[in-house]
């Protein structure tokens, strides 16, 4: 797939640039849809965060930073913010670290490779909520696959562990499920990167006597830098936004024990009807994503211009 470049140099037409107006019949509907579905809600979110709003959603005039003040007075916010950082970093880190060797593995040739790749697509294609609910069942106290296996292996005796309700484990279980659903996409991005490495470079190195590890470390890994970067950035955003896993497995509970800023904002708005601080947190979440998007645009711009 050739990337299209942002600059005009790749466009084959040598005619002078058309006016924006002549493009409008073609790209206007797309712009309209983006304005309606992305820009409007973003503006509305920011506007409400600066407005006094009742639990019923009635607006009562400009409120300055009142909602933000309320948000930062919330005693639970600090823990939730720290947990969010831990959540995002650990899920993304584990995902990338596990996906690297997996991509290498499914890039080898062996009989049935197609089926292994298909199997790895399943968690990517399946709904995340449904996958989370399946894990909820597998982690069930007495009949769940997980405890059953531990019992049969003789690792667990006596009282089984309630993985999702035990505060010592529930957060790690969420991290685990998030890593599970993030690996397939990440592995396929890295696999695409591996497949784009020209064979002759690798063969040349092999002829020169490089070991498999030297080829990987010295040639493949540096050439994967771009795929890794893209996969990491997209995962950062996805994991930060990841609402269905936490909602389906623990609802952020018990209490706020497994909430991230994303589920916390949702909970305040639609469970506790505490709209004001929720919109303030929503804006902060949105700002964080904007930041990563800007990094992404910078990173991909370089590639797009090379192409």
């Amino acid at each position, binding site marked *: 797939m050739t990337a299209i470049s942002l600059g005009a140099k790749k466009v084959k037409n040598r005619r002078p640039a058309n006016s924006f107006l002549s493009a409008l019949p073609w790209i206007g509907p797309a712009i309209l849809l983006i304005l309606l579905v992305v820009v409007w809600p973003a503006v509305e979110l920011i506007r409400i965060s600066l407005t006094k709003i009742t639990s019923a959603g009635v607006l009562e005039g400009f409120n300055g930073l009142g909602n933000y003040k309320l948000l930062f007075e919330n005693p639970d916010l600090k823990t939730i913010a720290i947990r969010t950082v831990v959540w995002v970093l650990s899920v993304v880190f584990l995902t990338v670290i596990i996906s690297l060797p997996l991509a290498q593995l499914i890039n080898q040739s062996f*009989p049935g490779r197609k089926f292994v790749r298909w199997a790895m697509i399943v968690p990517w294609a399946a709904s995340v909520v449904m996958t989370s609910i399946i894990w909820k069942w597998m982690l069930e106290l007495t009949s769940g696959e997980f405890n059953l296996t531990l019992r049969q292996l003789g690792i667990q005796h006596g009282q089984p562990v309630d993985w999702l309700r035990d505060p010592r484990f529930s957060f790690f279980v969420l991290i685990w499920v998030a890593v599970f659903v993030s690996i397939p996409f990440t592995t396929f991005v890295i696999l695409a990167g591996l497949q784009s490495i020209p064979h002759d470079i690798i063969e040349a190195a092999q002829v020169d006597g490089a070991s498999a590890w030297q080829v990987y470390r010295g040639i493949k890994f540096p050439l994967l830098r771009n795929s890794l970067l893209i996969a990491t950035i997209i995962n950062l955003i996805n994991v930060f936004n990841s609402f269905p896993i936490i909602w389906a497995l623990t609802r952020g509970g018990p209490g706020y024990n497994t909430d991230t800023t994303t589920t916390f904002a949702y909970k305040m708005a639609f469970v506790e009807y505490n709209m004001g601080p929720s919109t303030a947190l929503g804006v902060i979440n949105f700002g964080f994503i904007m930041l990563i998007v800007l990094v992404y645009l910078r990173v991909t711009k370089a590639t797009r211009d090379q192409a």
Partner: protein
Amino acid sequence: MSRKVKKDKVKFIWTPKKAATAISAYMVGIFFIYPYLNMLLTSLKPHGELYATPTTRLPKSWQFSNYLDVWSKAPVGNFLRASIVVSVCATLLVLLVSVPAAYYVARNRFKGRSAFLLLVLATQMFSPTALIIGIFREVKFFGQLDTWPALIVVNAGFNLAFAVWLLSGFFSSVPVEIEEAAMVDGCTRFQALRRIVLPVTLPGLVTAVIFTFVSTWNEFTVALTIISSPARQPISTGITTFVGQYDVAWEYLFTTTAIAIIPVVILFISIEKYLVGGLTAGSVK
């Protein structure tokens, strides 16, 4: 895009090293489908076996009738109808909007082209989750809470970027000369597009269609927030109604998820080779 021409089929020779590679790959494959196998097996158990001790992995009596009974035990038909209507309409809307945009961007220079592409790329990165309160209030403003059109438009908006990026890549791969030749031969621009360009870009269109369909099918947060009546729930939020109950009917829950998951997995597998290019805006080939 073009796959390497298949090398002459070399007969695979088993060596201990290759066997180790193959076996670890099979284990990885099994690992990733295991939860879904567990789902299928549980969906075939009678209710009494769910919590029976000792627990067994395979059903003792295979209750295939679960797949018939579930339709009357839960409004699965309604869920599926909602999901199909919303996903099909969102997909059509995405096509209608993205094809002209992608084509024009691939073929023309115009003022604001870079800005437009940046806007599209930025929206691809946003998920509706971060904007959910804004989306909720906007939908309410238009009086469309608890309606399918709201769900359709929001899903179309967030899937537009994938389609525009993927399709403009395909459109740029058709040499403009072929198209111009057709126009010299008396085709209108639209005819040239329909007869020359669309057939070549068909894999891109199929990918865009399937991707939008599947991601709308799986969308959870927006549906949870704006659809409140059980009769209008799509399957992604509909299934959660099983979970809240005191005695979860896991066997019916899993027949429903199996019905929802299997078709989209097959669809996704069919577009495997184009997925990464569309999702990473072509920056990973």
